[in-house]
């Protein structure tokens, strides 16, 4: 579904991604771990098409289509979703209005009519229940004054509303309390299917106990230096990253 080949990307002439290879098939869950500053969020941004990063080499394919000339909004229409590590605030725009706009823009891109208000309400009700979100919350300005955990839960609510093909969750677990983590994780599990894929960026094994990955990758200094099954996460939890850093330095 998502095929990344020898991906190199710069920001302000500094190379951050130095040759990433990754294939994510439909129905799979991949976890990406790695030390701070190793390039995890950068990879997520580049997949989503953030133009602050310049792709200097390599390619990203979604369902066989090269994304090179595809704008961020078109990638979203094609099913790429990014749960941001740091969601931004948009004052005065309610969560509901934002979602309505997002859904209708995607529909418009597909030549569909706006979603009827009735269906929209039903969808909102269904998804807010799934993530145990108080409906009052949805009339508040997007992320404005939200607590760290509320922001993350709201990201997953948006994911639930948009039903993406490939969802990248960038440290969605950080900031969530224990109950919220369980709710969000079970939400993600319910949204998972054989037709979509999830990439989890995380520092902690705990999330992976709830959403069990098929593969775990370690990103270090812009490269995937190790891949393995879910046991790799446990090993990292125990040993840290130093042994890997040494291994790759050799």
């Amino acid at each position, binding site marked *: 579904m998502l095929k990344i080949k020898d991906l190199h990307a710069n920001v302000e002439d500094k190379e951050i991604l130095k040759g990433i290879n990754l294939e994510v098939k439909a129905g799979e869950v991949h976890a990406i771990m790695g030390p701070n500053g190793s390039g995890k969020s950068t990879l997520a941004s580049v997949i989503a098409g953030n133009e*602050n990063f310049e792709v200097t080499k390599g390619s990203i394919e979604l369902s066989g289509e090269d994304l090179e000339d595809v704008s*961020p*909004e078109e990638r979203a229409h094609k099913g790429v979703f990014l749960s941001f590590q740091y969601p931004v605030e*948009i004052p*005065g725009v309610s969560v509901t*209005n934002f979602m309505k706009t997002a859904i209708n823009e995607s529909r*418009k891109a597909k030549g569909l009519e*706006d979603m009827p208000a009735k269906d929209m309400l039903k969808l909102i009700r269904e998804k807010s229940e799934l993530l145990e979100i108080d409906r009052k919350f949805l009339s508040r*300005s997007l992320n404005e004054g939200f607590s760290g955990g509320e922001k993350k839960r709201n990201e997953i609510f948006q994911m639930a509303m948009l039903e993406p093909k490939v969802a990248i969750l960038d440290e969605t677990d950080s900031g969530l309390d224990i109950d919220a983590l369980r709710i969000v994780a079970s939400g993600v599990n319910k949204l998972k299917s054989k037709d979509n894929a999830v990439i989890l960026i995380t520092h902690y094994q705990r999330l992976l106990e709830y959403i069990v990955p098929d593969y775990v990758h370690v990103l270090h200094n812009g490269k995937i230096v190790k891949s393995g099954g879910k046991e790799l996460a446990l090993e990292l939890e125990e040993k840290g990253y130093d042994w890997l850093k040494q291994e790759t330095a050799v």
Partner: protein
Amino acid sequence: MAYTEEELKKELETKEYEYGFYTDIESETFPNGLNEEIVIAISKKKGEPEWMTLWRLEAFKYWKEMVEPEWANVHYEKPDFQAISYYSAPKKADPNKTLDDVDPELLEMYKKLGISVDEQKKLQNVAVDIVMDSVSVATTFKKTLAEKGIIFCSISEAIKEHPELVKKYIGSVVPQRDNFYAALNSAVFSDGSFCYIPKGVRCPMELSTYFRINQAGTGQFERTLVIADEDSYVSYLEGCTAPSRDENQLHAAVVELIALDGAEIKYSTVQNWFPGNKEGKGGVYNFVTKRALCEKNAKVSWTQVETGSAVTWKYPSCILKGDNSIGEFYSIAVTNNYQQADTGTKMVHIGKNTKSTIISKGISAGKSQNSYRGLVQVNSRAEGARNFSQCDSLLMGNECGAHTFPYIEAKNKSAMIEHEATTSKIGEDQIFYCNQRGIDTEKAIALIVNGFSKEVLNKLPMEFAVEAQKLLEISLEGSVG
């Protein structure tokens, strides 16, 4: 929201000023220039009584001695007042006409503007008095209003039919010699609207006027007078669009509101005069004097959305004369390309326990300059006066400017005055966040701007709010890149 995405999409596809067409209607136009004879001729043309002619002449006398104000933070080529024609009327206009008799070309024009009279008729809840090239061409819903004793007509008609009211109130809030443009308007005003709500009456519908400049080189000098008698209520809507022109057009209106004891007036404006093209050529000069007088327990709210004009100079104000009276000012001013706006308000607290609220939202894009200038004045007798002001600016790009000039004059120690100001920029991260959710950049900006302006948009009557949202989007088109 009531607008459909389809409508919005259509609007967004229009890159150039969409109302930039010119309808060719035979006009009866006076020769250029201004002198006493022209003033008398205007008055005569309109069949005015002598007192009105004299009043105009008095204003003209003041005007000759005045100089144009210089202090606003705007720069423009001064209009040549002798190169303007001071009267122009669509020839076929006839006050006795019904809507069905209206010049089909006019109707066509309204259609292009999206305000076809046919549609307006169906709107049922909106009475429309259309001021077109200075003369009212059609008035609707007069009967319903008349049943309640409400008078809603052109000012010319009011001068003839209700001279006692006009004589008593015209110039009572904005005197002839108030300022340069008010004096000019008083001398040569061509037409405008008049509204009177009797004691204790709640006006059952939104009163609405559409203004439009049509003749090349014709200055527009509208005069509006709204009187809300004791304990009455009225909501008045004013909307403007203008066709594109190469030469600058002058618009100098005067609006006077009188809210007697316990009365409430809501005055909403969506202003969309031609702002000039991308190079800053053409566009309307808009110098407007708007002021309200509030008697005891009265309340006046000014709400305005300003997207147009090359140069705007406008300060809707409230004189809070009566005890416990309330003045409110809610404003969104958008400037793009080379537009300049110097707007704001004056709240003059005279009575005890008077309250005022000012919410100003300035949005600047392109190379435009957007200034807010507000005066809060508390007189020595205004015990317990309170003001809250909030001025927020949103910048798009690095070439535009936002300026805030709050002036506070408090002569009573018990006054409580609060002022808050913020300046923000639309962030790339906000845009990318929207993009990532499938919202393109143009739409993202519209969304962010609408969010920024929400507090003010919420104050507008529903049908106006929709129009205002669309206008915000149109006026900021192409402002990123």
